[in-house]
């Protein structure tokens, strides 16, 4: 039965079309859910309709109209709604509207991520709860609260005007990137990666590029995710342990994803409107060539720091500087950064101190890093490294 796949692919589109027509997100979710329940009963018996998405949207619309007929407030609205409900076509930008509502800056980041995965990604509440290792009731509550805010504060259901679009798009891209990062390097749990989240983020990234073909930062984010994802099979060994970039078996990288990502990076370069995601994609493109050209990576980080200065980018630049100018120069840069609560800050320091033979300080730094990681494989990697210093 392909219903699961159809659900994942079409849920967001159906919810966004019904929300547009009826202006009510809760109603839309209810009736689309009902339509899928009806489909689960009907399709195995009668076969798949020619357009499953069209069938779902029509069934959901009919249910919405039925429901509004029964409600007093709905009856007043119906005359306006019926002509809309009769239009068969559903423009692609309905999902875009819904994405901008889900990722409105008036919502907190956890709410944006949960709404996007639920409404656009079509993940169920238990699936999202599992992905972020929070109790199902907590995730359900988070979604209820977020939807209540959308309703009560009247968050608009539309694509922002051109003058607001860049800032609002940043909020969308940040949510998608956060989903990807959690999939790429899980903050907690026994596995380094959570592949379902990374896959979902890439699916969202592809959708954004399709809906916003002239937004180079959306393309940049997709390229960045594809190039990072391409290296995933080589990032862990047979027992789930971490393998560093330099030691990775490059034959295990995914050549199709690399080719696609590098083509997108080239398209960004041609567009000539660089931004943080595009530059990070370019850095990943350099990492995905045969041997990393570190001076080139440092130069790209210099560019990144011009458009998006920040201590985390400076830390990553220092890692590249270590490869070009040696660990001593890098350590000087790292020590100046205000990142003492950040696991990677201590991990990078530890590695630089280890390379400089400053073993006692390295052990202390490893301890600081281990204390700040909730991820199993990362912690065991750091412990193994610490042992090599102690010997």
């Amino acid at each position: 039965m392909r219903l699961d796949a159809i659900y994942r692919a079409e849920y967001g589109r159906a919810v966004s079309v019904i929300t547009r027509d009826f202006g009510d997100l809760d109603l839309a979710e209810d009736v689309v859910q009902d339509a899928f329940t009806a489909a689960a009963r009907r399709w195995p018996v009668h076969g798949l309709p020619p357009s499953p998405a069209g069938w779902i949207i029509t069934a959901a619309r009919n249910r919405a109209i039925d429901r509004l007929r029964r409600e007093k407030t709905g009856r007043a609205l119906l005359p306006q709604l019926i002509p809309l409900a009769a239009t068969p076509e559903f423009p692609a930008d309905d999902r875009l509207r819904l994405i901008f509502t889900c990722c409105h800056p008036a919502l907190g980041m956890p709410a944006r991520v949960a709404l996007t995965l639920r409404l656009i990604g079509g993940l169920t509440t238990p699936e999202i709860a599992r992905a972020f290792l929070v109790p199902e009731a907590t995730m359900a509550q988070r979604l209820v609260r977020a939807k209540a805010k959308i309703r009560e504060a009247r968050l608009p259901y539309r694509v922002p005007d051109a003058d607001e679009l860049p800032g609002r798009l940043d909020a969308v891209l940040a949510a998608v990137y956060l989903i990807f990062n959690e999939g790429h390097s899980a903050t907690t749990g026994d596995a380094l990666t959570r592949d379902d989240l990374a896959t979902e983020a890439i699916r969202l990234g592809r959708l954004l590029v399709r809906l916003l073909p002239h937004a180079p930062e959306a393309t940049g984010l997709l390229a960045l995710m594809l190039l990072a994802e391409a290296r995933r099979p080589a990032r862990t060994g047979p027992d789930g342990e971490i393998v560093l970039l330099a030691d990775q078996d490059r034959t295990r990288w995914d050549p199709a994803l690399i080719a696609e990502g590098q083509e997108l990076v080239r398209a960004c370069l041609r567009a000539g409107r660089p931004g943080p995601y595009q530059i990070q994609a370019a850095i990943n493109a350099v990492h995905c060539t045969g041997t990393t050209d570190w001076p080139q990576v440092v130069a790209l980080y210099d560019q990144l720091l011009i458009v998006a200065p920040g201590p985390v980018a400076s830390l990553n630049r220092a890692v590249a500087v270590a490869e070009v100018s040696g660990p001593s120069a890098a350590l000087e840069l790292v020590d100046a950064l205000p990142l003492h609560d950040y696991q990677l800050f201590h991990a990078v320091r530890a590695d630089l101190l280890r390379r400089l033979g400053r073993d006692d300080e390295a052990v202390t730094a490893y301890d600081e890093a281990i204390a700040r990681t909730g991820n199993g494989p990362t912690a065991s990697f750091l412990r193994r490294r610490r042992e090599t210093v102690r010997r």
Partner: protein
Amino acid sequence: MPKYLFSIEQPDGPPPGNIGQIMHDVGEVEDAMREAGIWLFSGGLTPADSATVVRGTLITDGPYVEGKEHLGGITVVDVPDLDEALRWATRLGTVIGLPIEVRAFQ
């Protein structure tokens, strides 16, 4: 259309030196709100330590919540959605230089 309350959170103590300029700029933003047909009400409050609290028949010296910041003034606008409300709040907040909480009326 939905109505929104803008609450201006103001630090206690004397007003800043350029208060005259600020009030002039606020007046201009309010004029723009009236022109756009969205302005319903606005007003600044006397200092929070002049507030009085009533609980049933009991009357005590205020303010109700202790703190270093209190509600300094409000504006009520009538706009189609949150984005429009946020646009006006941003404009007002920029001339006042203080945070503004935006909440919809039921």
